[in-house]
């Protein structure tokens, strides 16, 4: 028997309201909900209760509130679970589609995520120092009056003055990375040593893991402090993690340094290349007792932290005020008196970036996102096609009472599920790929940026929360992006039309139009990618075609250095180099040997030209710089450099005769614009080269000593017997594989002096390959992205047109039976593909013109996009598109009208 409800108006209306509210409740729990609220109403309307109208209103509102809450809960749990389950089922039912879609997504999301982790680590992440955003680099700037100012290094005297004068920046600290030879720990080895101010450790928040860091005791007081702190890795590998490390000594450049502390694991200094640290005061012993006293002996950079409450603008103006006083306080050396000096402040994060590396990384990231865009458009096209064939399903669901919003939600859930599967796999791929990418990019773009600061530590690349969020947002965005169009199409389904008509003849509402638009996007984006890739390829080819000015084949290169201590011990560097040369020359397999700068290796010396007989007006303030090297006799013969004029360096050019110099063509033209330079003199700020100067005895072809793509530079060559240097490059011409001689050369040096390390032993070919790694890897990756995009576009176009042909089978059959010839049928199909491709190419050309401007800085020997490149990639894309459209077109030609019509 049903409850005996009171029949008064208030109760009747309340029950009606409950009925309305119950519609909001998910069907599964609707009955129970209604029962419970009926019971509640019964209780409220019981005869003994005196409930006024207000209580009834509150009651009804409460019921609606609860109903809405139930609905929200239901949405959250049940329908989403349902949709996901349904989505997974549909995906499993078409495993081919699901697998290829997931793979495509996994690769593109994985690649984007891995590259993003690099961008995150180098551009976005906060450096691991306290208040890293308040860290600043203080530059010292020099230039000519009215000319541009360029950053330079600090000298210790000027740095001291800066520290005394400037209050707005705290913990001002100098740092400089040098190499020192480690001995008395196995065979001699060159390690990275940072010379630092003691305050750098509190500045960077670094505390000693053992012992102590530098303190007040190591501030320069005019005496040398031979103390060192060592890095964690150094302590582990060289000192066997000895617990009693503090107090031991380590021998660097033949000097014994007392170890006072070990730094925490992972810290490698601001430069990222330090194994050990020594205080500036040690330079009084490492270099010479006056090393810190010459205000123009400049070699290090300065960092500090903005004082509390000080803005960077305040600090900047204070530092600029200081900068203006530099030349009056520290008179410039003779001949450079016109130099103007200034100082500036740059945020640390900005200062450490290497612009070329930034452009490379952003270009790669942009490219990978474009590939993802193509993949997304491709998937949207595939899903549209599937959606069209699932129209009956949609129609049935709608006619069975599914709301359109429910339908859209379900389709979106499906595409999001697919994206999640792809994104998850992509994340796994990125997880594994990020290490490889880090090592690769370390080689390719270098990890050292402006002011020698490290900007990317490949070891710390990881999928952190920020990268994770990026991957999740990307996956969600992609899922919605490729799901939206099919969902919209489904929402417009008219169940009557769909169910009544035959499935094969339904023309999808968002059919060819929507997919055509997607193809246009894909073609356009692919064209941008291909144009970028071909520009980089052309630039790389230019780079590899550059005439180096020497023969890089069969050339073994290495670097070694004597120390000031060796000199003090009575070793004459000129005699030593000569002896070493003689011994190497005697080795079997050596065709020739010389000293000098190792191209793309060093040691590099730049010096100002103080004067030239060919240009009387030339003075040091004009900042004409020349790249100098001390070479052995027969240098150009060994290297295969063309002697244009005059002669090579000879054995007789020693310190008993006048100083001689050989110039490259650029230097000869710059310093002696008129007449032959032979027999005329130039002045250099080296001992013995000022006053009398050096006589030009030869002119040789320009050599490419740095990374290909650098502008031409002035180069000078002097005999090492006239200009002795402690360090030198060794260049050995071999008659076989250069690497085969490495061990023998090493042994020869060890035999001569066991305390000297031979470093950077490498064939010239390998060295050149290392230098061009960045452009090569960037180009290769862009090429791969371009190829992938081409493939995706072809697949997308093929899929779309094949689908259109399949759906138009009846129409095409009808046309054929009415007498249309096969060619015109094929053209009908082809025209569809050609139209969208041409539209895409048009859009792409505009896009490429705009986008490739950002590659400008990376290009060598090409000014940017030229019509040849654009036409080339357009033709390529068009050809591929034609091929992709041809296959379904051929199928259209072969349609048998009888079969097509009977199939209905």
């Amino acid at each position, binding site marked *: 028997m049903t409850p005996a409800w009171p029949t008064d108006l208030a109760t009747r209306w309340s029950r009606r309201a409950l009925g309305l509210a119950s519609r909001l409740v998910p069907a599964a729990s609707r009955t129970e909900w209604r029962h419970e609220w009926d*019971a509640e109403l019964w209780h409220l309307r019981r005869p003994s209760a005196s409930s006024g109208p207000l209580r009834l209103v509150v009651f009804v509102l409460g019921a609606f509130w609860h109903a809405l809450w139930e609905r929200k809960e239901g949405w959250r749990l049940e329908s989403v679970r349902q949709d996901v389950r349904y989505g997974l089922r549909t995906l499993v039912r078409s495993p081919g589609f699901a697998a290829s879609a997931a793979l495509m997504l996994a690769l593109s999301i994985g690649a984007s995520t891995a590259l993003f982790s690099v961008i995150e680590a180098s551009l976005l992440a906060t450096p691991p120092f306290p208040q890293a955003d308040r860290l600043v680099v203080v530059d010292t700037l020099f230039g000519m009056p009215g000319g541009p100012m360029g950053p330079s290094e600090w000298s210790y005297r000027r740095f001291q003055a800066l520290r005394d004068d400037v209050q707005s920046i705290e913990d001002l600290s100098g740092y400089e990375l040098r190499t020192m030879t480690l001995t008395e720990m196995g065979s001699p080895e060159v390690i990275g040593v940072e010379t630092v101010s003691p305050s750098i450790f509190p500045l960077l928040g670094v505390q000693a893991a053992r012992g102590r860091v530098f303190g007040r005791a190591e501030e320069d007081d005019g005496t040398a402090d031979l103390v060192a702190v060592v890095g964690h890795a150094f302590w582990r590998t060289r000192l066997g993690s000895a617990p009693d490390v503090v107090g031991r000594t380590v021998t660097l450049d033949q000097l014994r340094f007392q170890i006072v502390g070990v730094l925490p694991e992972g810290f490698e200094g601001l430069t990222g290349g330090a194994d050990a640290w020594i205080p500036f005061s040690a330079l009084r012993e490492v270099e010479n007792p006056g090393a810190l006293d010459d205000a123009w002996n400049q070699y290090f950079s300065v960092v500090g932290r903005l004082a509390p409450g000080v803005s960077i603008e305040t600090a900047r103006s204070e530092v600029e005020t200081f900068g203006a006083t530099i030349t009056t306080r520290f008179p410039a050396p003779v001949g450079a008196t016109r130099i103007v000096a200034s100082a500036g402040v740059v945020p640390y994060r900005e200062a450490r970036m290497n612009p070329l590396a930034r452009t490379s990384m952003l270009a790669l990231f942009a490219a990978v996102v474009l590939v993802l865009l193509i993949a997304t458009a491709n998937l949207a096209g595939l899903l549209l096609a599937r959606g069209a064939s699932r129209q009956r399903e949609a129609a049935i669901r709608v006619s069975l009472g599914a709301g359109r919003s429910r339908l859209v939600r379900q389709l979106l859930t499906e595409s999001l599920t697919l994206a999640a599967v792809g994104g998850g796999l992509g994340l796994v791929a990125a997880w594994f790929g990020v290490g490889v990418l880090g090592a690769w990019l370390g080689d390719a773009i270098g990890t050292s940026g402006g002011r020698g600061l490290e900007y990317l530590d490949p070891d710390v690349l990881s999928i952190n929360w920020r990268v994770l969020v990026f991957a999740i947002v990307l996956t969600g965005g992609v899922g919605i992006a490729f799901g939206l169009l099919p969902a919209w199409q489904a929402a417009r389904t008219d169940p009557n039309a769909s169910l009544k008509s035959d499935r094969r003849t339904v023309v999808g509402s968002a059919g060819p139009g929507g997919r055509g638009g997607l193809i246009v996007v894909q073609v356009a984006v692919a064209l941008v990618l291909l144009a970028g890739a071909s520009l980089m390829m052309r630039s790389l080819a230019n780079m590899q075609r550059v005439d180096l000015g020497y023969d890089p084949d069969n050339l073994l290169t290495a670097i070694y250095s004597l120390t000031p201590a060796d000199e003090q011990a009575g070793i004459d560097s000129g005699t030593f180099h000569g002896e070493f040369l003689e011994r190497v020359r005697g080795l079997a397999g050596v065709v020739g040997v010389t000293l000098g700068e190792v191209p793309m290796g060093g040691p590099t010396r730049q010096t100002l030209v103080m004067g030239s007989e060919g240009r009387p007006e030339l003075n040091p303030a004009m900042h004409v710089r020349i790249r100098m090297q001390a070479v052995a006799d027969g240098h150009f013969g060994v290297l295969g450099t063309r002697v244009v004029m005059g002669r090579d360096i000879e054995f007789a050019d020693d310190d008993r005769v006048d100083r001689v110099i050989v110039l490259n063509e650029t230097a000869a033209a710059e310093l002696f614009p008129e007449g032959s330079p032979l027999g005329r003199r130039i002045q250099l700020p080296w001992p013995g080269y000022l006053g009398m100067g050096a006589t030009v005895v030869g002119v040789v072809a320009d050599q490419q000593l740095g990374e290909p793509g650098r502008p031409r530079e002035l180069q000078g060559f002097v005999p090492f017997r006239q200009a002795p240097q402690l360090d030198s490059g060794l260049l050995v011409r071999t008659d076989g594989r250069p690497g085969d001689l490495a061990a023998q050369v090493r042994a020869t040096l060890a035999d001569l002096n066991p305390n000297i390390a031979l470093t950077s032993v490498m064939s010239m070919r390998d060295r050149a390959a290392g230098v061009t790694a960045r452009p090569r890897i960037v180009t290769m990756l862009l090429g791969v992205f371009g190829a992938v995009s081409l493939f995706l576009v072809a697949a997308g176009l093929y899929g779309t047109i094949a689908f259109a042909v399949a759906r138009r089978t009846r129409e095409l059959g009808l046309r054929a039976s009415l007498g249309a010839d096969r060619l015109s049928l094929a053209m009908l199909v082809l025209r569809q593909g050609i139209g969208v491709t041409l539209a895409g190419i048009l859009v792409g050309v505009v896009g490429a013109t705009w986008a490739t401007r950002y590659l400008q800085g990376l290009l060598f020997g090409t000014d940017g996009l030229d019509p040849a490149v654009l036409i080339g990639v357009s033709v390529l894309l068009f050809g591929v598109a034609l091929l992709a459209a041809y296959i379904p077109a051929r199928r259209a030609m072969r349609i048998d009208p009888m079969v097509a019509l009977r199939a209905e």
Partner: protein
Amino acid sequence: MPGTVYTTLRRLEARRFVEGRWEDAAIAEAERRPRRRYYTLTPQGASALEEAGERLTALARGVRRAVSGASDR
């Protein structure tokens, strides 16, 4: 408001602090009224209640001490 009571009851049920049980249909029909749903506290619910009580007491104590401490000064 009854709406908040029911949403709270649902949440308590989801956490198994209370257990809902429908009344026997026969009884409701005999009395010619809708079926009632009876809620009982589970042992888990009881201990959660205990805990919450203790927390509130501790909080009240803390607040009282803070207030009296402040007025002393």
